[in-house]
């Protein structure tokens, strides 16, 4: 035996390890029931939301949540987001990010364990496995069995169910982008946009593949999030932990009876590994492979109950608690991890952004104006010596009904304006335009000031007519020759 073999006795012969199939066993318990609940709620939200209706009057779609890319609108119940208000969406995304930080620093990888789409769909597909092939042992037997007509039929049946779920998932996605009932009809009639079919095909394929076959490999090898989480979790974050100071050394009940005091609480039944959706053995310590789904807690608590030992051999604990308990201290209540500077700071930022968004939502007007002055040329001398500037003024009516808007000059007392769709003779300080619902009206506006007017700042103001008038204004500049006259 060479010295190398002594150093690395299990030298790799291949540089790639084949995936070991994971066949998690059914388990029941509080965490499993919570997982059921989360799965039901999240899937119901995902599949059901596009079918909720919301009456917005005759001019706007009546789908409660709709991302209308063609018209560049985002509808969410009573809220309607325009492209220039995209900061709402950006704000929500930032909140989602900080929310993840908050949750992770408080309760570890709760997102991974319960509500990550990959987790939810993997869970769903595992239930399908159980439904078609039976529980863990039956599935392992079937896996190992040679191909036969029966096995092929089972596989075909199972993959068909996968495919139906995957297709339904891909189909639900496009419903967010167009009126759901209409799109469904068009889709089956072959009238939907090709991008709809493409999206459904891609999402069906990815759901089928990632949920049906890749499963825990996505969490362990493909997903970047666990790598970032490592930096977000500290010694005060709750994680699923095997209390080795209590469990080790392991030994079966029989051995422990023979030799009392020599063994820890773990009876080495391996149930915690059997139920784990990623096939990880939590007794090896925290690892990227553990998505904190807590099914092993359910499993071990059940075992402990059967053998009459206290629950919580595997439990949520912080690394700090672990040290404390290992040194002989009493278990501390888990809620204490929730309230500490780090989580409070995250929560404050998170809530601050949320309040700011709410405030912006409450105070925003349904009227917008933007003014862009012509720069080439920046001003124009007319034959009677007066000075003319040109502007592109965009008026936005962000309501689902047509409105009359009055555009008015503010400043440059002697100035008047006209637009390129009206005769110059009708130039005035106020012009009124009818704007269709949910529309931006671009106007080319000429402002004319008497000879000798100096360059100066002024503004355009738009006001709606009728009850509850709204107003929007924009500052801009009037350019003129500096040294004339």
């Amino acid at each position, binding site marked *: 035996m*060479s*010295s*190398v073999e002594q*150093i*690395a006795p299990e*030298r*790799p*012969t291949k*540089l*790639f390890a084949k995936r070991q199939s994971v066949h998690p066993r059914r388990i029941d318990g509080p965490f499993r029931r919570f997982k059921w609940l989360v799965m039901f709620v999240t899937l119901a939200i995902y599949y059901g939301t596009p079918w909720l209706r919301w009456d917005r009057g005759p001019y706007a779609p009546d789908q409660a949540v709709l991302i209308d890319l063609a018209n560049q609108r985002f509808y969410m119940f009573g809220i309607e987001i325009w492209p220039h208000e995209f900061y709402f969406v950006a704000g929500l995304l930032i909140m989602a990010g900080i929310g993840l930080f908050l949750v992770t620093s408080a309760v570890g990888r709760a997102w991974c364990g319960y509500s990550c789409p990959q987790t939810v769909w993997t869970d769903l597909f595992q239930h399908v496995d159980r439904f078609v092939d039976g529980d863990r042992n039956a599935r392992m037997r079937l896996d190992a069995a040679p191909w036969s007509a029966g096995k092929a039929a089972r596989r075909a049946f199972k993959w068909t169910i996968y495919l139906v779920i995957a297709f339904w998932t891909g189909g639900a996605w496009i419903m967010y982008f167009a009126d759901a009932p209409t799109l469904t009809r068009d889709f089956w009639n072959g009238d939907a946009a090709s991008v709809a079919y493409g999206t459904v095909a891609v999402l069906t394929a990815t759901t089928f593949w990632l949920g049906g076959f890749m499963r825990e490999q996505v969490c362990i090898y493909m997903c970047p999030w666990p790598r970032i989480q490592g930096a977000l979790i500290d010694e005060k974050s709750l994680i699923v932990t095997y209390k080795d100071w209590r469990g080790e050394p392991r030994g079966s009940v029989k051995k422990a009876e023979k030799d009392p005091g020599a063994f820890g609480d773990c009876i080495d039944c391996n149930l915690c590994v059997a139920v784990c959706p990623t096939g990880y053995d939590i007794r090896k310590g925290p690892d990227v492979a553990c998505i904190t789904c807590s099914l092993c807690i359910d499993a071990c608590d059940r075992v402990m109950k059967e053998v009459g030992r206290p629950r919580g051999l595997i439990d949520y604990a912080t690394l700090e608690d672990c040290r404390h308990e290992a040194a002989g201290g009493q278990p501390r209540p888990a809620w204490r991890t929730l309230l500490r500077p780090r989580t409070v700071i995250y929560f404050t930022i998170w809530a601050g952004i949320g309040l700011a968004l709410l405030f912006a939502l409450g105070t925003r007007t349904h009227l917008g104006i933007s003014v862009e002055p*012509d*720069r*080439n*040329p920046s001003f*124009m*001398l*007319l*034959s*009677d*010596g007066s000075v*003319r500037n*040109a502007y592109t003024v965009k008026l936005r009516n962000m309501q689902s009904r047509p409105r009359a808007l009055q555009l008015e000059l503010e400043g440059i007392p002697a100035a008047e304006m006209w637009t*390129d*769709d009206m*005769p110059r003779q009708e130039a005035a300080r106020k012009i009124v335009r009818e704007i269709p619902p949910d529309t931006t009206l671009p106007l080319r506006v*000429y402002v004319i000031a008497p*000879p000798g007017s100096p360059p100066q700042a002024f503004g355009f103001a738009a006001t709606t007519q009728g009850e509850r008038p709204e107003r929007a204004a924009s500052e801009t500049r009037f350019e003129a020759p500096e040294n004339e006259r």
Partner: protein
Amino acid sequence: MANRRLDEATGTETVGHEWDGIEELDTPMPRWWLWTFFATVVFAVGYAIAYPAWPLVEKGTEGVLGWTSRGEFAREMQHERDGRAALMAQLTATPIERLADDPELMRAAVAGGRAAFKVNCVQCHGSGAAGSAGYPNLNDDDWLWGGDLKTIEYTLLHGIRQPGEDTTRTSLMPAFGGALSSEQIGQVADHVLSFSGKAKDNAAGAQLFADNCAACHGPAGTGNRELGAPNLADAIWLYGGTSESIAQQIRQPRHGVMPAWQHRLDPVTIRMLAAYVHSLGGGEQFVEVAANAADQADEQR
């Protein structure tokens, strides 16, 4: 240099190169990688046969598919032209003074004109069409020959003082450098400036103007579009509005030339250019259209 040996830790042969004590294992390629590589080789051979690939002395190989990037470009351009054919036909068929009746068509014409302007006109009139000394500003409301759509189109087609062009607009201001003395020219220039209140009038200048200039520019200097005689009573000066530049123009006038574009551009492009220039803010109403608008207003009432 090759020093192949068996690596003890892995039992794999090394490739025999060493960099600062680091050696590379001669691990075989995965099968799929090799097949992918072979597939790319096959693809490359097929590609080199099908498409132009090998440079030869005179020309490159042409490829059995006969594809060329020029051909591709021509096809794309043709496709683009075909797509616009209907619009272009409509633009050709619509008399320019009727363009405004169809806002959609007008918008298309202005957009097309803007593009054509950037290619053909900016050299003289500037990218913002604001012109410069000697090159008219097309944004303002002063037109030597008229600023309605039809007149602008005519000017574009036939040019101004285009040599060898029968239908071109021509006006030639005589040079007064020999006929008038320097002092007299200064007096006329002052009189001309007095029209727009920029200088004090003088009787001698007024008399000289009445004798020599009023025939074309009018007694009050307001110009004559029939002759392309500029309005001297407004604030816009093609060659500068100081008494020196005016005096120079009286002494030895400069005459700008606008090319006749009908030989260089097709009629639709010229029509679109006219629409664009008209849209710049100084365009004038076509008289007949104005009458029409009045009719429509009456009907609505």
